[in-house]
C-alpha cells in the first residue's frame, strides 16, 4: 500500500476532532479521551488526586522495540474517536460503581508513535491500595478489549500489519 493511499483512508482516524485542551478537560471530567500528541502524565495525575486518595495506581503502556519476534520500528494507532469517548465514559463509570475508588482517568494516544512513546495512561485513586490496583487493571483490560483503536506496526524486513488484542 503506498503512503498516499494509506493517508487518504486513515487520516481522519489519526487525529482528534477537538483541541488538546478539550481532550484533557474531557479526560479529567468523564474519565477518558483520545489525544494525538504526547500524553502529559503529570497533568492527568494532578487531576486524579485529592485528600481522600491514599493510594494512586497508574499504568502506562509504551511502544516497545519488540513484539514477539519482530523488531518494531514504529507504529500508528488509529481511533474511532466518537465511539471511543462514549465507550470510555461507560468504562470509567462502571469502574467507579464497581470498585471502591475515588477517581479514575485514562487517555489513549492515536497517530504515529516512535519506540518509547506512551500510547496509553490509566490512573486510579482510592482510599485503599487493593481497590486502586484492581480498578486500574480492570480499566486497562477493558479499554484494550472494547475501545475502537487499531494498531499498525512497521518492521524493517516485513510488510506492516494490523494487530489485534484478541487474535
Amino acid at each position: 500500500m503506498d503512503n498516499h493511499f494509506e493517508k487518504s483512508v486513515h487520516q481522519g482516524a489519526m487525529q482528534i476532532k477537538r483541541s488538546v485542551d478539550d481532550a484533557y478537560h474531557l479526560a479529567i471530567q468523564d474519565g477518558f479521551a483520545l489525544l494525538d500528541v504526547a500524553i502529559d502524565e503529570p497533568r492527568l495525575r494532578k487531576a486524579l488526586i485529592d485528600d481522600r486518595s491514599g493510594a494512586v495506581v497508574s499504568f502506562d503502556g509504551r511502544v516497545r522495540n519488540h513484539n514477539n519476534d519482530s523488531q518494531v520500528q514504529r507504529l500508528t494507532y488509529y481511533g474511532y474517536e466518537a465511539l471511543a469517548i462514549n465507550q470510555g465514559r461507560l468504562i470509567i463509570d462502571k469502574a467507579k460503581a464497581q470498585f471502591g475508588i475515588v477517581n479514575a482517568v485514562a487517555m489513549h494516544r492515536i497517530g504515529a508513535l516512535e519506540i518509547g512513546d506512551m500510547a496509553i495512561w490509566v490512573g486510579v485513586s482510592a482510599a485503599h491500595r487493593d481497590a486502586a490496583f484492581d480498578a486500574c487493571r480492570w480499566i486497562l483490560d477493558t479499554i484494550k478489549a472494547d475501545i475502537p483503536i487499531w494498531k499498525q506496526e512497521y518492521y524493517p524486513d516485513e510488510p506492516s500489519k494490523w494487530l489485534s488484542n484478541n487474535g
Partner: protein
Amino acid sequence: MSVESTIEINVLYFANLADESGCDEESLAIANKMSLSQLYDHLQQKHSLSMPQSELRVAINDYFVSWDEPIKAGDNVVFISPVAGG
C-alpha cells in the same frame, strides 16, 4: 409493481475495512428494514471485505449496538474489526 421504500444511511470504515473498501466513509440508500447483518453481507460483496461478520462488532451513532438493532434513516453505521488499543 411494488415501490420499495429506501432510507439513507452513512457507513464509516476503519483499519483493515478502510483498506479493503478504499474509503473511510460512504453514503448509501438501503432498503428499509434491512438488518445490520444484511447490510454487512451487502458491503462485504460490494468491497470484497475479507472479514466474516462473526469477527466484527457493530456501532450505530457512536455507540456499540447488538446485531439485531434496527437501522433508521440517517444512522451512522460502523462495523468494528478486532481492536488493538493499549
